[in-house]
């Protein structure tokens, strides 16, 4: 025991928590994949499952987004953040019992939340559709986990902090603030009229920009140097990039309200700030890619890093596209089209999830001491890549078609406008099947490492009891 390196000890302290959050995240990922398939299937055949009230398209679509962001995203964030913070602080994960307990509450809250949505108790606020009854449980369990993450950070050996820590800590702290602001403005002291929409839209978009995005960026800032064994190129820019995101992102997200019944300064300032977002995007992109392309062969050889670089490229690409689509002249065409789906999937799948996959493949063997077969990882990478690209292309081309045709008032809506984008719905259905398959491979990969021999668990348990 005494010969173990400090990293080994830290990894061992994180094992239970990491395994718990990761295996729950995997189950949510599969749940979301199932919902995604059902929603896509309903768009190709409106009669599919139509006799059941619990599975209207509106409910399933919303349930999918919630399962993905809070279920998969939330659990993955807990797993990856705790481990990276522990590694960087050179401190052990403490309070595993409370972490797992809070995790159970969090997962139960989301489960009941999703059941509530399917049962017709949807709140109608973007990304806060789960019934208000589960909100307190979500907030409390989240705060427990964040508190224990801060405990790890406070007991760090090196006082100096680096980029991954800023991004991850900021994300952990921003979420409850966003959540409370939205809760206060939507339920406690309900805003009047369309201000509700401003607020829920701001929350829903900020959730992606200030919660999922920084964690993924932080993980990338950690993994790229760790795998390549070299420092981040032009690292001095990272601090500028971080504060740019912190200062600009909360403003930029409201550009989606362009032209709507809200005070005109709100979308206007959103557009200005969106354009300013090119700075932090450029910084992150320079940091990541300048470093990675110094040693691109090594990036290609390391599967975790291949996932991460796919994610960072996707981030750069999607963020620049987001800037272009925020320009009023372009928004006139793309607003309200299935381009929205392109943005959402690009962010949560092409960027966030791909980086998390990379982080998991990097961390899991170190934590459990068991390797995942290279063929299984590689299969997951290629199916994911293919599925995501197919999905995004369909939404992008379909969305542009949607917007251009909708802008011609002489075209009849359902037969001409929506009829023309129906082939793309079919493609997204195929893409979701591929992705579901790919996610199943990921979850099997993870579970096989975490529970190498499920039956022996029971056997060991019995032995302990008898002893």
């Amino acid at each position, binding site marked *: 025991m005494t010969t173990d390196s400090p990293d080994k000890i830290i990894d061992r302290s994180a094992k239970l928590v990491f395994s718990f959050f990761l295996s729950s995240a995997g189950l949510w990922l599969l749940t979301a994949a199932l919902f995604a398939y059902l929603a896509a299937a309903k768009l190709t055949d*409106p009669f599919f499952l139509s006799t*059941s009230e619990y599975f209207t398209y*509106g409910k399933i679509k919303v349930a999918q987004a919630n399962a993905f962001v809070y279920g998969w995203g939330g659990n993955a964030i807990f797993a990856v953040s705790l481990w990276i913070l522990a590694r960087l602080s050179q401190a052990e994960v403490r309070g595993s019992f409370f972490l797992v307990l809070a995790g159970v509450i969090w997962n139960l809250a989301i489960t009941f939340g999703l059941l509530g949505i399917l049962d017709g108790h949807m709140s109608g606020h973007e990304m806060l559709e789960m019934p208000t009854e589960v909100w307190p449980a979500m907030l409390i369990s989240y705060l427990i986990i964040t508190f224990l993450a801060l405990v790890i950070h406070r007991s760090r050996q090196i006082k100096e902090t680096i980029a991954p820590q800023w991004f991850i800590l900021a994300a952990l702290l921003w979420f409850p603030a966003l959540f409370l602001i939205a809760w206060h403005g939507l339920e406690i002291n309900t805003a*009047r009229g369309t201000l509700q929409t401003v607020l829920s839209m*701001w929350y829903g978009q900020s959730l992606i920009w200030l919660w999922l995005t920084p964690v993924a960026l932080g993980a990338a800032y950690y993994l790229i140097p760790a795998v390549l064994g070299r420092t981040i190129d032009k690292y001095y820019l990272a601090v500028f990039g971080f504060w740019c995101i912190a200062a600009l992102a909360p403003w930029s997200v409201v550009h989606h309200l362009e032209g709507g019944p809200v005070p005109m300064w709100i979308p206007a300032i959103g557009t200005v700030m969106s354009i300013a977002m090119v700075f932090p995007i450029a910084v992150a992109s320079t940091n990541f890619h300048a470093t990675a392309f110094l040693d691109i062969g090594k990036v290609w050889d390391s599967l975790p890093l291949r996932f991460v670089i796919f994610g960072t490229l996707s981030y750069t690409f999607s963020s620049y596209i987001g800037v272009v689509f925020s320009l009023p002249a372009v928004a006139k065409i793309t607003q309200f089209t299935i381009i929205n789906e392109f943005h959402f999937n690009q962010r949560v799948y092409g960027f966030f999830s791909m980086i998390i996959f990379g982080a998991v493949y990097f961390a899991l063997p170190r934590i459990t001491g068991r390797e995942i077969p290279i063929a299984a990882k590689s299969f997951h990478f290629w199916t994911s890549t293919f599925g995501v690209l197919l999905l995004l292309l369909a939404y992008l081309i379909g969305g542009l078609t949607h917007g251009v045709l909708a802008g*011609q008032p002489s075209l009849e*809506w359902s*037969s001409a406008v*929506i009829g023309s984008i129906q082939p793309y719905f079919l493609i997204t259905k195929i893409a979701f099947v591929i992705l579901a398959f790919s996610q199943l491979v990921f979850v099997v990969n993870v579970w096989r490492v975490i529970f190498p021999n499920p039956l022996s668990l029971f056997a060991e348990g019995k032995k302990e009891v008898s002893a």
Partner: protein
Amino acid sequence: MNNLGKFTIGIFLTLGIAWLAFVVGARKQYGDLVPSPQALEEDGSIPADADIFPVELAGLAKQGAEEYASLGCVTCHTQQVRRVETGFDVERGWGKRPSVPRDYVLQDHVLLGNSRIGPDLANLGLRDYSDEWFHQHLFEPQSIIPSSLCPPSPFLYDEIDEPVHADIEVTSELDVDKTRYIRSSIRASRLVAYLQSLKQDYELPEVAFVDQPVEELVAQEDPSDVSEIVSSSIPTWLQQQMDAGKEVYMKAAAGGGMCFTCHQPNGVGLAGQFPPLAGSDWVLGDKDRLIKISMYGLMGEIEVNGVKYNNVMAPPGIPPGSLTDDQIANVLTYIRNDWGNSASAVSAEEVATVRASLKGRAPMQMFTAAELTPAE
């Protein structure tokens, strides 16, 4: 960056500034937003006995809003008409004017939406669909619009084997032989009441109808221009009916008649193809025939002012055959009194009488000239 406390203050500060603007600032801006009359007096006061808008929804419609939210309709439908410079919504006939914040101040749950796989619904109640149409659409959208992607909601209805008068007949366009009868549940009735209540058909001090530029509005209110209106020989009610009729005649979007595309804006038609309306013996003659043609269209040979035409006139309106009694009365009054024509006005009651007399006629079954000409 190394001090967790300072770091936390920093990141909450950046978030807090945005919060101050969007929540605190915007809330203050919305503070005094209340329903208002369509126009204010010159000194900014509210005119006496003016109706104020928006109006509170009826109880049933309010419950319908909850159903709408709970079923997730907002996932595919927006309820906002964008400003003319930022979208095509008014052009598409989704509203008479852009939506403004004041339109929503009385709603408990604002359901603006951000995706349009289905059309915008901000003015659904203005599209003159019957309750029956809504029920048929909710039960099975494809029975009315075969290409619709909207999921059917059969769980809101009971299918009835032995129908009574109040039950609704659903005939699928895909399978004409299959006729079903449905009885709506209270939830379906709430939803329909809500959908019918969606309308922004009033002007507000901050926004005017798009077809009517603001300068014109001001001009009408300006007392110095009253002389011009008074001096015209046409009574005000007729002028209003003709104005409304002209709108139907010239409008090529949902809710319009699109008449001008064939009969031309000046009513002279197109030689050899479409008969003229100006000076036409049909237009200035029997009202009943005109009303019937406006409802069902006309096909085959017709002789107008001694010239024979042979073409097809689909049931007018977008969608076809959708013109309401009021619209038909207005547009017929318009074509009987513009371009030098002068004949008696047509009232909505007259249209309703003719519509009642044609109750058994299948929708879209076009008339022929022979059918409309009394046997001699």
